[in-house]
């Protein structure tokens, strides 16, 4: 990792996190956001990337298409699962069937 990258996000992304970051940027058409620059520990919603509830639904759809398992809208752990790139990537790695 270069010094420049480490100053922009203090914690490095894993390959699975980078793959998910690319999915998020493409699925949600995020303007001016480079997948590799998303801080894996920063909030995805409200602050951080500034996503909202429609984005959460779109993201759940794209994840189910890519990784072959359903993210449920009534899962009581959704706040934790969707809290950051890191937690969402970890959830996907545990439950993925394909991709």
């Amino acid at each position, binding site marked *: 990792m270069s010094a420049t990258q480490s100053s922009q996000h203090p914690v490095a992304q894993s390959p699975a996190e980078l793959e998910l970051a690319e999915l998020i940027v493409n699925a949600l058409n995020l303007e001016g956001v480079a997948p590799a620059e998303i801080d894996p520990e920063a909030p995805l919603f409200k602050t951080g990337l*500034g996503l909202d509830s*429609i*984005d959460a639904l*779109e993201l759940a759809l794209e994840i189910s298409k890519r990784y072959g398992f359903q993210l449920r809208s009534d899962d009581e752990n959704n706040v934790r699962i969707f809290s950051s790139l890191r937690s969402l990537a970890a959830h996907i790695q545990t439950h993925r069937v394909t991709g």
Partner: protein
Amino acid sequence: MTLQVAIEGVAFWASRLPGWDLARAVIRGEQAPPEAASARPAPTLLAPTERRRAPDTVAVALEVAGRACEAAGRKPSDLPSVFASTHGDLAISDYMCSTLAATPALISPIKFHNSVHNAAAGYWSIGTGSLAPYTAISAYEYTFGAGLIEAATQAACEERPVLYVAFDIEAKGALASMAPSRGLLGAALVLAPASAAQKQRSLILTTESVAESRPTAPRSAAAPLVADNALAPCLPFFEILAMSQPRTLCLALSKQMALNVQVN
């Protein structure tokens, strides 16, 4: 029925005629049209969250809506509005149909959100922070005339200026074979109650029952540039607006109903 309204502002945007000044010059034969199609206008009015989700319908409708208000010197959030589109977003309708047929649980929430006929009107009211009423209408091939009469009726009856926005975009997929439309085309007017002292151009609209409506045909060099778009029936109206002389044209409201438009 006869209605008289003033025209406070005009806007026009087509992929090959991006802007009213250019469209007017091409209609008048003063300028050649650009060789290439322009990229869709950027809906800069919207906050980033709405902007990144905005489909082509919203981009072209908001472009002309904003320009017409600017030309009229009116604050967008003050104006009631009428949004008219022949097909709405046929690309999304086609996506919805094919996804529902193949994998119904996998409909994109963003595409679903954008699929409604009043999507452009909704984005406009969010983007401008407007609480004024809006209307979204469609009347297939008679859409432009139907929207014009709706907007003029509101301006005359409510005695306040009204924004009229008409738009159609490119059709995609299987639906395009039944309801073809190419490129982007949007047009907008700010109409206001007619007053004796006005210096603006004005319209007198009269409906007429006829054996068979015969709408005025387009005649300018702009016609082939928009002929493939579903909103092409609006062009003769803008051809007359582009000229300074008063003229009358006919728009069809149905097979047996004509809308005679005197442009002063």
